[in-house]
């Protein structure tokens, strides 16, 4: 049966005792898509992935790969392969044998398996490494062996469980780009799990944000970033300033939120007695002269309490009158405020569009 999706998860629930690790989750992944599941530690990402791979069985719901239900199909018969968090390379085999393992399991002859393995190693940039022991590889090289070992089988779907978690920051940045390119050249569907929002944002076509066993929102990185559907997504994806208050009057599309100090902010969204408002640091405009912010509905004055210098990603923490937490704002290094010092007075402002309001 032809199917327009590679993976369909239908109302899948997994309980360990009374605790639902995965709670009524549904989504689909299209062929060739890079799909990420992003969520904090313990939210059930690995459990979900292990159900797709066949190592756990859903308490209820269905898992379909290319339209075929995988319930009752053992892990070694599923057209999915997994890159484990710990990579799980076979230490008793050489690099070449690791890659050829899956092929020989399928009954491919030894000679052909070796041939295809060495071709695959060449494609991932490990030409001539076939006879090395896996213990004699660097972290990035092992990573590539683990992926080559899956891709050589030409699976419908590759599952990756935080494969970059064990690498140092520099290498992780590098592998992010490399993984994305690999996925592009092989045109294989990837389902990738991570708790690192920057990994998910950089690599994915679509991201599902998961929290406590449930999906909060599924969408493109841009959608999640600019139009978060829930307060959890707003605070988990990207840096943000979070304000708590109560919703006051709403008029022509904007809603006012009164902070405990009495200050009022204008935003967009829905609020109730209790409301949460979020504004991104890059949406906060800075000025020394309040006149230049006069067209913004949200205007406040404060004092710089910290300068977080990080090149292009530098930001300021500003103690703002009426706010419990300092406001974080991106500090453009090319602007007039680049040299601002701690203690300097500054005015902040943002549009109502930039402020998302949710009922808490």
């Amino acid at each position, binding site marked *: 049966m032809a199917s327009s999706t590679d993976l369909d998860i239908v109302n899948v629930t997994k309980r360990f005792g009374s605790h639902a690790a995965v709670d009524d989750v549904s989504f689909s992944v299209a062929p060739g898509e890079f799909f990420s599941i992003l969520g904090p530690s313990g939210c059930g990402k690995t459990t979900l992935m292990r159900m797709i791979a066949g190592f756990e069985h859903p308490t209820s719901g269905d898992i379909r790969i290319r339209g075929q239900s995988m319930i009752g199909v053992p892990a070694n018969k599923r057209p999915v392969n997994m890159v484990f968090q710990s990579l799980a390379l076979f230490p008793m085999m050489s690099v070449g044998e690791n890659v050829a393992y899956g092929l020989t*399991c399928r009954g491919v002859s030894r000679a052909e398996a070796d041939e295809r393995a060495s071709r695959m190693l060449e494609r991932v940039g490990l030409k001539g490494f076939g006879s090395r022991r896996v213990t004699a590889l660097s972290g990035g090289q092992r990573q590539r062996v683990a992926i080559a070992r899956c891709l050589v089988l030409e699976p419908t779907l590759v599952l990756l469980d935080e494969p970059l978690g064990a690498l140092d920051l520099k290498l992780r940045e590098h592998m992010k780009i490399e993984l994305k390119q690999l996925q592009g050249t092989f045109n294989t569907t990837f389902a990738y799990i991570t708790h690192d929002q920057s990994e998910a944002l950089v690599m994915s076509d679509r991201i599902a944000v998961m929290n406590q066993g449930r999906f909060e929102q599924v969408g493109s990185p841009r959608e999640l970033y600019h139009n978060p559907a829930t307060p959890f997504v707003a605070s988990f994806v990207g840096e943000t300033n979070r304000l708590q208050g109560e919703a006051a009057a709403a008029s022509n599309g904007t809603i006012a939120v009164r902070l405990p100090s009495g200050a009022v902010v204008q935003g967009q969204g829905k609020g109730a007695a209790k409301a949460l408002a979020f504004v991104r640091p890059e949406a906060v405009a800075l000025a020394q002269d309040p006149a230049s912010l006069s067209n913004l509905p949200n205007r406040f004055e404060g004092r710089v309490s910290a300068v977080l210098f990080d090149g292009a990603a530098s930001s300021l923490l500003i103690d703002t009158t009426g706010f419990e937490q300092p406001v974080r704002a991106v500090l453009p290094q090319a602007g007039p405020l680049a040299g601002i010092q701690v203690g300097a007075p500054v005015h902040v402002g943002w549009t109502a569009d930039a402020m998302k309001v949710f009922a808490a």
Partner: protein
Amino acid sequence: MIAKQASRLTLFLLLAPAILWLGLLIVLPHVEILVLSFSERVAPRVYAFGFGNYLEFFTEPLYWRTFARTAFMSILVTALTLVLAFPIALYIARVAQGRLKAMLLLLCLLPFWVSELVRTLGWMILLRETGVISYALRSMGVASQPVELLYNDGAVILGLVYGGLLFMIVPLANALESLEPAVVEAGYDLGGSRWTVLRRIVIPHAMPGIVAGCIIVFMLTVGNFATPVLLGGKNGLWFTEQIYAQFITRFNWPQGAAFGMLLLLLSSAIVWLGLRLTGQSLGTTLKQA
């Protein structure tokens, strides 16, 4: 300078018990036995240097046949123990958790709280003609007459496997425990059947443990005395019995010494061969044990 001497002295003092132990109990008797094995009795109480004791071994069929039988049976017992212990060790190392794991290991250890002799006598109580199993078979109507289950090779093998099991399970479980669960899962994930995963991942990983267990069990079995004698009776025909007979019954110490040396040679040769065939080194193997 003085500090260095002092530290040497401490090292020497620390090593002294080990050296004494090795020297007095192992090296010295063996040198003595080696020397003894080359002395022939030319007349009553007159001995001369010669290879007669070794020649005697090759000319008397009973001796070398018993020898070969001991070697063969010991290898068989080792193999059986391995086959039996592997699933148990696999269960202990990979399935059982927490208290169950400790309980199972304790259960394996339990038979060793009584002496080997008592354990073997236990088997005799079960297996002899008037024993528990014979009685049960009769009362169930399976057998009409008392059944003698003792004094055959089966009984000897049973006793020896039972005695070796623990020494196989512990190094095996140790080796299997260090196998990362994700590696086994990856084996299945990439399409391996149970058999493939066992053959290509689990067994190669456990190899040092397998070899360590086999060496220990083989040595214990070859050198065992009570089990073949008690459970095998006249049919036991274990080489240690020949050594015992020469030393104690016949009072022919030089002959017994030659047999002892041959047994030592045999176990060393087979252990060496085993290490060679499996490509393991003694060092890594001993670490597992």
